């Protein structure tokens, strides 16, 4: 149905008055929402196929079997909700079902409980600000239907609009994993079962971006420059912080989770640029930037879904997601290995895969904003390009590390040594998404018109000319062309030619020999570079942000302290926001809690006195 709406442009409307008391359960799917429904459907389908072969993590329990379809349904329906009550009901359904799914394995591992607590607090905090924002807007508009609100909101006073935007933005940002509300992401994703983390990273976080666009551009009809500068700043911060932590994480799933924060940041950079252009009257550019952001969202869902699914395959095959315990998997897992490699190449924006197309469009939209007489655009665009570039470089670093340490070289543990290919439904599901990365990267015209329509629906900017002309991507009314298909063809042709030339020059078999190692006896995995050592130069360069801690335990043999028996080194990186923001907040909340406990001491007389005082205050205030 989503695909039908997306391509035909006819909205699908469901309106049932009696499903929820005191309100109506109203669904109205336009092309913007349909884009999200289709993405969720594709990722959901693959996750479900993957689940057939996936065992472990308690996902086969009865509770999980009931909740997982409920979660997917709520994901599919949120973008269709067309009034505040329906939206909030589905939003909470999504939050609670996903919380249950994160917690499926809580009996086995204590970390799952901690992850669940973080997730529960962050998601409910987000929901609270969301309710405040939407209720404020709907009371001021005198109606809770989104179409009524979109009609009346532009005439509301500026402070109501800004308050709504900021409040809902906080709620949506916590769902999307935007810095500094990202802390639940790197905890919940590694602990959730594979298909669930794929769904959360590739479908659920999208809805945070959906919400920001829907409220900011559709319901409020755009806003002042500072809203969008704020969105760009948050996006840039998330992109840099996420990519930096992804580059220095050693756990495969944690790395992927931070990379989600990074990519959401890039999308917000595009959304912010779009709003900024719209608020200064550059309508074509506003549309272009939003298309770039939404295209990146589509592509991110596909490659991140593929990466999370194949990471779960690796986890099932080896029993670990710690990069320092993997290695040599490309030869042992002949399908899942290349699938992960493709996903990693796509997310690093390497041509001719999908990530390249969306990042190119994002760069183009920023380029064409310049030269500008508007100071905020003139400053924001070069900094945006710098952020995008640093993020791109760090992402390439991250995935060279993940692939090079995790899949190539020698296996570092027995688990990795004995790994074999996973069941067919698992690699097929991840492989389907990886295949889409290639297809959509080479032929982006398959999705660009749909994304253009979605962006046009929400910004109400409709350009006659389209972005995609056959195999090329051109910009409407602006110079600049990209031909991803041609690029792929050229690369394939030259790879073929060069390989052929090498074969002609040297037709014989390739001799296998031991790698050179300065005269050591035998090559073992202990001599390999680890993920920690791979990331060390970067950790040192960004020492001020990452604050690495390092502990060395040396034990000496009993006879002489000049000889060491064993030396153990512990290194760790802590999330700067967790240390500087959340721990102090947690401590002060606990202190306030302890102080407040003194007030209700259990005496009924005191409670009666509280009631009386409260009544007097109310009467005085009302008088």
């Amino acid at each position, binding site marked *: 149905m989503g695909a039908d709406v997306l391509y035909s442009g006819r909205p699908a409307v469901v309106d049932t008055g009696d499903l929820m008391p005191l309100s109506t359960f109203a669904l109205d799917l336009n092309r913007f929402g349909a884009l999200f429904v289709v993405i969720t459907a594709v990722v959901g389908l693959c996750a479900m196929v993957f689940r057939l072969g996936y065992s472990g993590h308690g996902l086969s329990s009865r509770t999980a079997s009931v909740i997982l379809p409920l979660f997917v349904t709520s994901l599919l329906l949120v973008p269709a909700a067309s009034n505040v009550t329906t939206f909030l009901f589905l939003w909470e359904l999504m939050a609670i079902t996903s919380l249950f799914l994160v917690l499926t394995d809580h009996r086995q591992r204590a970390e799952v409980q901690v992850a669940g607590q973080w997730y529960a607090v962050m998601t409910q905090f987000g929901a609270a600000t969301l309710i405040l924002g939407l209720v404020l807007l709907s009371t001021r508009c005198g109606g809770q239907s989104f179409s009524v609100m979109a009609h009346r909101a532009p005439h509301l006073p500026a402070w109501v609009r800004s308050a709504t935007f900021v409040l809902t933005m906080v709620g949506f940002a916590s769902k999307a994993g935007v810095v500094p509300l990202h802390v639940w992401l790197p905890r919940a994703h590694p602990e959730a079962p594979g298909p669930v983390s794929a769904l959360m990273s590739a479908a659920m976080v999208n809805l945070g971006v959906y919400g920001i666009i829907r409220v900011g551009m559709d319901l409020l009809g755009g806003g002042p420059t500072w809203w969008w500068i704020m969105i760009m700043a948050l996006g840039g911060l998330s992109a840099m912080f996420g990519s930096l932590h992804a580059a220095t994480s050693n756990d495969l799933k944690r790395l992927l989770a931070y990379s989600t924060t990074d990519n959401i940041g890039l999308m917000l950079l595009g959304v912010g640029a779009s709003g900024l252009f719209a608020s200064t009257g550059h309508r074509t550019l506003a549309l272009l930037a939003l298309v770039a952001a939404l295209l990146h969202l589509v592509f991110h869902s596909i490659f991140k879904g593929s990466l999370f699914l194949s990471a779960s395959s690796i986890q099932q095959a080896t029993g670990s997601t710690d990069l320092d315990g993997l290695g*040599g998997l490309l030869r042992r897992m002949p399908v899942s290995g290349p699938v992960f490699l493709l996903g990693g190449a796509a997310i690093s924006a390497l041509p001719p895969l999908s990530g390249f197309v969306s990042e190119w469009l994002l760069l183009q939209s920023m380029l064409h904003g310049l030269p500008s007489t508007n100071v905020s655009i003139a400053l924001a665009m070069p900094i945006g390009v*710098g952020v995008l570039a640093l993020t791109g470089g760090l992402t390439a670093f991250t995935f060279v590390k993940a692939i090079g340490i995790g899949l190539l070289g020698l296996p570092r543990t027995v688990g990795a040594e004995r790994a074999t290919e996973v069941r067919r439904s698992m690699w097929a599901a991840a492989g389907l998404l990886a295949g889409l990365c290639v297809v959509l990267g080479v032929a982006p015209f398959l999705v660009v018109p749909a994304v253009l329509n979605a962006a046009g629906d929400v910004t109400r900017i409709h350009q006659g000319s389209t972005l995609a002309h056959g195999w090329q991507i051109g910009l409407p009314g602006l110079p600049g062309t990209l031909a991803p298909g041609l690029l792929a063809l050229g690369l394939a042709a030259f790879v073929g030619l060069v390989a052929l030339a090498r074969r002609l020059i040297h037709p014989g078999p*390739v001799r296998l020999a031991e*790698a050179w190692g300065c005269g050591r006896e035998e090559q073992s995995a202990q001599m390999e570079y680890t993920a920690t*050592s791979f990331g060390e130069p*970067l950790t040192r360069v960004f020492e001020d942000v990452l604050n690495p801690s390092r502990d060395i335990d040396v034990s000496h043999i009993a006879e002489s302290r000049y000889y060491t028996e064993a030396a153990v080194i512990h290194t760790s990186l802590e999330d700067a926001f967790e240390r500087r923001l959340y721990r102090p907040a947690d401590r002060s909340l606990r202190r306030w809690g302890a102080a407040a406990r003194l007030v209700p001491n259990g005496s009924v007389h005191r409670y009666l006195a509280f009631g009386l005082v409260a009544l007097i205050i109310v009467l005085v205030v009302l008088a």
Partner: protein
Amino acid sequence: MSAHWPAVSVVAVSVLQLILVMLGGPLLLGLMRKVRCRMEGRVGPPLRQPLLDLRKLARRERIRPEHASWVFPFAPVALAATTLVVATVTPLLTTHPLFGWSADLFAVVFLFLLGSVSLALGSLDTGTAFGGMGASRAMTIGALTEPALLVAVLALSVPAHSSNLPAIITRSLAHPAWLATPQRVLALVAFLIVIIAESGRLPVDNPATHLELTMIHEAMVLEYAGPDLALVKMAESMRLAVLFTLLANLFVPWGIATAPGPLHLALAIGATAGKVAALGTAMAAFEVTVAKLRLFRVPELLAGAFVLAVLAVLSALVVP
């Protein structure tokens, strides 16, 4: 692009570009070595020595480390292919190369990134400490180079309202006054630093080092031998030649053929060879005078390049 370009000549020019890059890359390296040797008071090997080295390597047998997968032999091929794609579509000799409308400066940057990533993966595939060391360092420097590179690209694209390479060069030919503006000069310095870092020259990396612990690029290719090593060396020298030519054409575009015809082309070949040789000589002379930077000082250099590039974009506000 007012002159009419027959399809045959467009294809012929691109093939010519490819051949010249394949030959010119090793010769450029030979020239840089020669200049270096002369400045140090030595005679130095002949200019064509890198080509002879390639021939020697190509004749040897192919060896692969026993633990490596298909990524190891594939990496040099990918590295060479990305460089060849760039050499075909970018305006090296004329403003009208084959598929020149698709020669986007951002796309060129990402194509080079594809080559670097392939080589880093190939080196990690060997499972040795040197491979990991080289890949880790190269990717760290690569990641830090990217912001300066893309913002410098932005600084060049903004006045032309396009990041299409032929468009930028054609427009700067039409407006020669641009070339002396402060943003151009700032972008030029940023680009030079970026090219030094990207191609692994002094003071970022020493291509002639024999000590594994100080190696960056050489540590990555330590396991390659015979035809595979020839491919890597060839690709690296071609990349240097392409980068130098692009730099020369972007900042001093005169001499590039704007109309078809053998005379224009011959002139363009002469002019380009001259510009690239001058640039190579200057770079080699600079390399003699500097020592390799400590690895952890390199980020400062790259941050400096980034600041220059941002200033180049911002100065367009002040000096239109």
